[in-house]
């Protein structure tokens, strides 16, 4: 349990709890197995800012979450992967004081970090081989390779954006040039809209038309030249690029902040725009990304929706947003630094069991928000538990995309490669790059599939991952404990063990069936299906 609370205080709170239980009621008592028993304390600047806000509004924050909850949460949030039973157990049993901080560091360094965030970035960059984005499979591969290594090496974010906006070369070889190809509309306006959405979090279709036009001028000299190779294109700056009407490209452009500029004849206007964008003084660039990271980790932005930034949609806690912005700039655009700050805050480590009925509790992040696992993360987790895999392929167009057996859905990298499951569970089509394209809301169809499909039933019953559990040998209590660690990443409570023992007693003659039903129940529990 990572906490800097003095021991005396803890003893005091325990004493209080014993002395005046009526007074404290649900206020302090730990709710098993979600709470740790530790009330919220300030751990860093994020906590300080929010604690002030909560106090002013009279919102009581949730308790700090338990170790079991934390290990599962931070694995899912940082690497999109369920911890194994061993990983969960090792963490929970670890008695060192700073184990949460150490785990965060460990996860930020894992290759799955890059896998998972390549997927999330792929959504907003619209990485898709087919209709309506039509990047083509080889280009998708190149784009994903660039993205993956940029995230794995934690490329400074200004450089990350610079490369996406100013690269030139073949779409099959220079991955970043695909930024300009991954839009349904490759006209200067269409591109400007995509740039505004991705890097400024603004929806340019809501702008006055002249504002979009002024920005579009920066992207009016891009050419997409075919080569002799099928579907290869060279994306490059072409100062003589004619507009659709046949006129020469505009000579003047207007930055989104209203400043006009005459485009210098000897410079790629994309670079002129990108330099304006990545400046520490730019009012959108840092704000957009820190707000998105917050949204990715909490399911709700400080500005919400995170990709609908506008003056009449202000941040709920402006001080928090500007603090994160300044941290990003001062860290020289180190994205992992922002993750670290958030993950180490006690705000992030709050339990999902609220302690306040204040209507704005969720808006101010006073408890961890429940969210259904994303389609890819969910099926990967079920595959991990059951020791099974899914088949993914894409037969149209040639070259066929063959996904190696056992590949995780998180790593597919192309919205054209899909499956009925991923479709059903709201995987984004990557058609327009809006965060809302990903739909994590449960439907009756999804519920049917999880409760009663042969797809899930076969995984549970035939998967090799649970053979040890269905085997006739072994101590039942130990096996149930391991099952809980495998599926829910925590130890079962005594109460749960009692319920299971009772059920088993009632169904004595069907003990394998009882085992299957138990696995089924845990996989179908909200605790498994939701980030919590």
């Amino acid at each position, binding site marked *: 349990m990572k906490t800097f609370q003095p021991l005396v205080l803890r003893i005091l709170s325990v004493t209080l709890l014993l002395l005046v239980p009526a007074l404290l009621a649900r206020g302090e008592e730990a709710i098993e197995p979600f709470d740790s028993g530790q009330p919220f304390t300030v751990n860093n600047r994020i906590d300080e800012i929010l604690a002030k806000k909560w106090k002013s509004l009279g919102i009581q924050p949730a308790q700090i979450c338990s170790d079991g909850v934390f290990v599962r949460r931070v694995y899912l949030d940082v690497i999109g992967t369920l911890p194994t039973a061993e990983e969960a157990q090792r963490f929970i049993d670890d008695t060192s004081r700073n184990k949460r901080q150490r785990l965060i560091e460990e996860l930020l360094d894992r290759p799955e970090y890059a896998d998972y965030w390549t997927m999330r970035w792929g959504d907003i960059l619209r990485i898709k081989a087919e209709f309506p984005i039509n990047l083509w499979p080889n280009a998708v591969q190149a784009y994903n390779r660039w993205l993956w290594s940029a995230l794995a090496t934690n490329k400074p974010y200004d450089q990350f954006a610079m490369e996406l906006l100013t690269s030139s070369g073949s779409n099959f070889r220079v991955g970043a040039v695909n930024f300009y190809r991954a839009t349904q509309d490759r006209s200067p306006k269409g591109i400007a809209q995509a740039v505004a959405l991705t890097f400024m979090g603004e929806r340019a279709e809501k702008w006055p038309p002249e504002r979009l036009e002024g920005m579009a001028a920066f992207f009016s000299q891009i050419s997409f030249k075919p080569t002799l190779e099928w579907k290869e294109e060279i994306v490059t700056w072409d100062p003589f690029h004619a507009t659709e009407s046949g006129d020469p490209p505009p000579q003047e452009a207007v930055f989104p902040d209203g400043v006009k500029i005459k485009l210098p004849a000897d410079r790629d206007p994309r670079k002129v725009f990108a330099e304006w964008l990545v400046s520490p003084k730019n009012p959108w660039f840092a704000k957009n990304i820190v707000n998105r990271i917050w949204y990715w980790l909490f399911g709700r932005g400080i500005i919400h929706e995170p990709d609908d930034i506008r003056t009449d949609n202000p941040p709920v806690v402006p001080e928090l947003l500007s603090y994160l912005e300044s941290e990003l700039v001062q860290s020289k655009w180190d994205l992992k630094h922002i993750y670290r700050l958030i993950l180490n805050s006690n705000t992030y480590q709050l339990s999902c069991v609220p302690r306040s009925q204040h209507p704005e509790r969720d808006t101010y992040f006073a408890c961890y928000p429940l969210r259904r696992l994303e389609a890819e993360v969910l099926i990967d987790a079920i595959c991990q538990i059951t020791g099974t895999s899914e088949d993914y392929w894409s037969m149209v167009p040639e070259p066929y995309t063959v996904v190696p057996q056992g590949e995780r859905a998180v790593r597919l990298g192309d919205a054209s490669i899909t499956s009925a499951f991923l479709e059903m569970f709201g995987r984004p089509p990557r058609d327009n790059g809006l965060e809302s394209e990903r739909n994590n809301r449960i439907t009756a169809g999804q519920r049917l599939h999880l*409760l009663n499909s042969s797809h899930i*039933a076969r995984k549970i019953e035939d998967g090799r991952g649970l053979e040890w559990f269905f085997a006739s040998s072994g101590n039942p209590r130990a096996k149930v404990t391991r099952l809980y660690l495998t599926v829910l990443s925590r130890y079962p409570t005594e109460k749960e063990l009692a319920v299971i023992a009772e059920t088993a007693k009632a169904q004595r003659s069907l003990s394998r069936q009882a085992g299957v039903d138990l696995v089924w129940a845990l996989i179908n529990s*909200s605790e498994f299906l939701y980030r919590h």
Partner: protein
Amino acid sequence: MSDFRLAHVILNPADQAGPREKLTRRTLLARGLFGVLGLYLGHRGFTSPSAWAFDPLLPADKPGKAKAVIQIWLWGGPSHLDTFDPKPDAGNDYTGPFTNPISTNVPGIRINELLTELAKVADKYSLIRGMTHGVNAHETAAYLVQTGRMPGDRIVAPAVGAVVSYFKGQPPEYQSLIPPYIVLTEPQGRFSEAGFLGPKYKPFATGGDPSKTPFTVEGIVAPGMTQSRQRERRELLAKLDILRQTVSDHPQIQELKQAEEQAYDLILGSSGKAFDPSEEPQELRQKYGTTTFGQSCLVARRLVERGVRYVTINSKGWDTHKEHFQAMRRKLPDLDRGLATLIQDLADRGLLESTLIWCCGEFGRTPKIAWEPPWNGGRHHYGKAFSVLVAGGGFKGGQVVGATDKTGSEVVERPVYPTDLIGSIYTLLGIDPATTVRHPQGQMVRIVPTPEEGAPSAGLLKEIMTV
């Protein structure tokens, strides 16, 4: 805990079979159609029960002739010459072995010689022989025929089924537990039926195979699972789901509970029987054909009978570049039996009036045969001219719309574009083709595009519509 042993045991086979409820059509209707809440309540009603009242996009509620649609999608593109537009005088390079088209019960209409059953019900359907769009790529053409739009105008349009589900498949109008839009049995791969309307308007794909007993409908019918075990499981889940117990009033948990109740209404209730063709007389099942396609047609009838709005039957294997004629000899009798029996069966039950059938692929196939290897008598993609069969729901029978030239290569009379066909289907359903829906990015999008948007039109199929 000591009693909790995990060992392999053989399940009692009697237990697996489960209780068979004998149900009349009336009780099914009572329980299913007018049952609790629509399965896909998640749509509009879910987030805001009064969403309908605030939605200015819905057209005035015009009653249409058609209440339901069955779309038979011949994925890959069947040859028009070898189905509904034979050209027996065009010579061997065009006809191949099919030189004797047969007469139907409508004088003057002749169709391929293998379609003997369809020949007996030609008075109940019409043939559109002037269908055209000119696109020869599968995905683009499939999108075009089912949305009316060419790709590339920044929107991913919903297919006909999703639009029908949007306008006709939501509460309060649609109250069935069965999803309003169903695909038998697999979805069309990459094709996103729901388009920008989003996942809640996607079809429910049954999976499984209706020609097998039982027809395992993914999620609804689980083989070997008794109702009592389903109930025990549900209780176990309720006992063990600690998070649900702890934060039971959380909106996410409320949503989960609601979805789960709807799911269990289908699992434990009788609505799922709609999918079970084994409840039909053996003789009728035989008539439909005991194949996946034939039994899918039968299940489609059972579904529309219970109020389902849109059923797509995806029939694969029509992309016959190689050895085309061998493939036709296998596939046409299957199509013939299933489709003809479906039309007759619906007519016998008085359901053809209110059930619209359309049957086609994304395009036709090249009129001229590729005899040379590697094709060995193949036909390639052809979007310039092809045929569509339409029946019921307000479409007249016994008519032919448009014509192609002597070799089936060009439309020479009354072209019909995808927008014309789709617009006519909507009109018969009482949905105004000029209706717009809101795109998530804000703009209003017409459900049928206009010529100004680049979608050609030669007018609705008024000549065969009874409205």
